[in-house]
C-alpha cells in the first residue's frame, strides 16, 4: 500500500480509530523516569521531545524541544510484557467427589494495539512466535493474544549507545510483521500498512481526515531515514564515543561460543554479575517460565500459575539433590551462549535483536557485546 502523510497534530485520530475498532491502545509514555508502555488515550501523553541516554546500568531521560515523538529508543518494557505476561493462571483444578476436575475458564484476551514498536522489538516478536507457536506443542494463551495483536511500528531515526540492532540485522528499519509503520519526518509521519487489519485502520483514518500520498521523491527520502541511521551506526567506532557505542560481531558466533565454554572470561564476568536476572527479564525474547501451584488452605482448589523464570536463578537448574548450574559463572554462560548460539540450533535465529536492554538494565552494567568481544579476542580454542 502506498505511503501517506499523517500530521503530528492528527495523531489522536489514529488512537481514536484503533479504540473505535475495539482495541485497547498501548503507547510509550514518560513515567517513573523512563519511557514505558502504558494505556494511551491521549496523543499528548506520548513522549514528544524526550530522549533517553543509555549506557551500562544507566538510563536517563533528557528533554530536547527539537526532538520528535519517537526519538527515544527502547525502554524497560517490550511486547513481551503483554504477549507473555510475567505471571498468569493458565489452569484451575477442583477436587470433586468424582475426582479432579479441570475448571479452567475459556480464555478471551483483549484486542491489543501497541504503538511505537521498533525494528528490534518486531524481530523479537517474530522470534517469540517461533518459540511459542513454532513447535508441535504450543502456548495457546500466547496464540490467542498474538492473533489479536495490532502493531504500529516506528522506524528509528536515533540510536542509543546501547543499541546494536544493525549488528543483528534487526533494525533500525522495521522488518515485516507490522500492521502499520510510521516514519517521523519533521512534523509529519509517513504512514503505511501491510496487513488487512492495517489497511482497514488506514481506511478508517482516511474517512476522518485527508491522508495525502507521498510523492516518489518523498518515499525515497522516507526510506532513507532508517537507512541513514543504520549507516551512522555502522560507522560508529567503540573508542569514539562516551558512552561507548555498541556493536556485535556475529561472524561464526555459534561455534565461537560453543568452542569456548571453558573460557576464563566466564569466571571473570561472574565477579561482576549479580545473578539478579534483570537482563533476562528485560530481554524481549527470553522465554523461560516455570509453574507454581497455588492452593487454598484446604488444597481442594488449585490454580496453576505460569511465571517468568530466569537461568540466573538457582531454581531454573535445580534437580533432585544437585543443581546443574550452581555458580554465577555457569549461569551467565548459559544465558549468553543460549541467547547467541543455542538459539540458532533451536529456532534457526539468534535470540538477540540488539535492543541493548540487557546492557542498560543490568544494575552493574555488564555488556553482552563486550563479553563476546573479550572471548573473540582471545579464544581458548579457535572456532571449528
Amino acid at each position, binding site marked *: 500500500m502506498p505511503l501517506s502523510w499523517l500530521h503530528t497534530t492528527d495523531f489522536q485520530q489514529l488512537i481514536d480509530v484503533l479504540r473505535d475498532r475495539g482495541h485497547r491502545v498501548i503507547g510509550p509514555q514518560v513515567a517513573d523516569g523512563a519511557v514505558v508502555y502504558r494505556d494511551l488515550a491521549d496523543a499528548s501523553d506520548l513522549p514528544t521531545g524526550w530522549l533517553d541516554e543509555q549506557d551500562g*546500568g544507566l*538510563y536517563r531521560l533528557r528533554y530536547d524541544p527539537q526532538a520528535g515523538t519517537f526519538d527515544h529508543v527502547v525502554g*524497560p518494557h517490550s511486547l513481551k510484557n503483554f504477549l507473555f505476561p510475567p505471571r498468569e493462571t493458565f489452569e484451575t483444578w477442583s477436587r470433586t467427589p468424582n475426582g479432579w476436575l479441570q475448571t479452567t475458564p475459556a480464555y478471551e484476551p483483549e484486542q491489543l494495539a501497541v504503538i511505537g514498536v521498533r525494528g528490534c522489538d518486531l524481530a523479537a516478536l517474530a522470534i517469540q512466535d517461533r518459540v511459542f507457536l513454532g513447535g508441535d506443542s504450543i502456548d495457546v494463551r500466547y496464540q490467542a493474544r498474538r492473533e489479536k495483536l495490532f502493531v504500529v511500528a516506528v522506524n528509528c531515526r536515533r540510536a542509543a549507545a546501547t543499541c546494536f540492532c544493525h549488528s543483528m540485522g534487526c533494525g533500525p528499519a522495521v522488518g515485516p510483521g507490522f500492521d502499520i509503520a510510521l516514519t517521523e519526518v519533521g512534523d509529519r509521519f509517513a504512514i503505511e500498512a501491510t496487513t488487512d487489519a492495517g489497511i482497514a485502520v488506514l481506511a478508517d483514518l482516511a474517512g476522518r481526515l485527508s491522508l495525502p500520498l507521498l510523492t516518489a521523491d518523498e518515499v525515497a527520502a522516507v526510506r532513507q531515514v532508517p537507512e541513514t541511521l543504520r549507516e551512522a551506526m555502522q560507522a560508529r567506532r567503540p573508542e569514539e564515543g562516551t558512552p561507548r557505542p555498541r556493536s556485535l560481531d556475529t561472524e561464526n558466533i555459534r561455534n565461537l561460543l560453543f568452542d569456548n565454554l571453558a573460557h576464563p572470561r566466564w569466571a571473570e564476568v561472574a565477579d561482576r554479575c*549479580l545473578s*539478579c536476572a534483570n537482563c533476562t527479564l528485560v530481554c524481549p525474547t527470553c522465554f523461560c517460565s516455570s509453574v507454581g*501451584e497455588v492452593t487454598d*488452605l484446604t488444597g481442594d482448589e488449585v490454580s496453576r500459575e505460569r*511465571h517468568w523464570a530466569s537461568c540466573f536463578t538457582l531454581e531454573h537448574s535445580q534437580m533432585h539433590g544437585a543443581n546443574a548450574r550452581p555458580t554465577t559463572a555457569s549461569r551467565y554462560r548459559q544465558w549468553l551462549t543460549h541467547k547467541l548460539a543455542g538459539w540458532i540450533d533451536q529456532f534457526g535465529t539468534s535470540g538477540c535483536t540488539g535492543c541493548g536492554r540487557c546492557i*542498560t538494565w543490568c*544494575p552493574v552494567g555488564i555488556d553482552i557485546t563486550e563479553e563476546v568481544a573479550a572471548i573473540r579476542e582471545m579464544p581458548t580454542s579457535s572456532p571449528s
Partner: protein
Amino acid sequence: MRPRLAVYKFASCDGCQLQVIDVLGRARKHLGEVADLLDIEHFLEARSRIGAGPYDVGLVEGSVSTLHDVERIKEIRRQCRFLITIGACATAGGIQALRNWGQIDDFLGAVYATPAYIDTLATSDPISAHVKVDFELRGCPIDPGQLASVISAFCVGRRPRLPGYSVCVECKERGTVCVAVAKGIPCLGPVTQAGCGAICPAHDRECFGCYGPDRQEPNLVSLTGFYERHGANRDSLGRLVQSFNAWAPEFREEHDRLSGSES
C-alpha cells in the same frame, strides 16, 4: 488429626505475629474455619487458652537476646516437631542486632539507671544460632501470602516453595522501572531475596533488604562498587546494608568491608 500450632515471641516488635493473626483471620473469612485445618494451641498474643505440648508446628518470632531466651528456645525446640522462624529478628537477629557492633555495657549504662538489674546477652542472635530450625520465613515483617502458602504446604504435605531469586524479579513482574538504573538510587534489590512484592521501588524508594541476602551468592561487592563508582557515598552504602537484616552474614560482611572494620 489436625496439626497443632504454637506461636512464640522473642525480642521483636510483634509485627510478624500480627501478620499471623491476619492470615488466620483471613482464612476464617474466605476459606472456612481455620480450625478445620489447624488447632491453635499456643498463641499468647491472640488467645489466653494454652493447650499442652508437644505441637506439630511452631512459629517463632524475635531474636534471642537473654540467657532466659536461650533456655526457652531450647524447650520450644523440644516441644515443636517442625520449627519455623518468622521475620528478620528470628532469622537474622533483627534491627536490634546493631548492638552486636557495640559494647553491651555502654548501652546498659546509657539507658538504664541501674544496669546491674539487667541480665542480657552481648548480642542479638537469630534463632538458628541456638537451635535447629526447619524452615525460615524472612521479611520485616513477613508476607501474609508467604505465611499462608507455608501453612497450606504444611497441611497438604508439600515442601513450602518460596522465591529463590532477587527482588528485581518482583520489580520486573510489576513493571516497576528500576530506581537504581533510571534514577541512580542505590538499591539493595539485586542482592536481596524476593518475597515482599517489591513494594519500596514501586514507591520510588530503594530496597532496604528486609528479606535478607539473596540465597544465591549475593554479589554485594560488585553492586556497592558500581554505586560507588557512580557517585554513592561509602558510608551511606554501609548504612544501607546495616538495617533489619544487618547481622545476616553477607550484609554484615559487606558493612564491615565498606567501613574497613572487622567485627
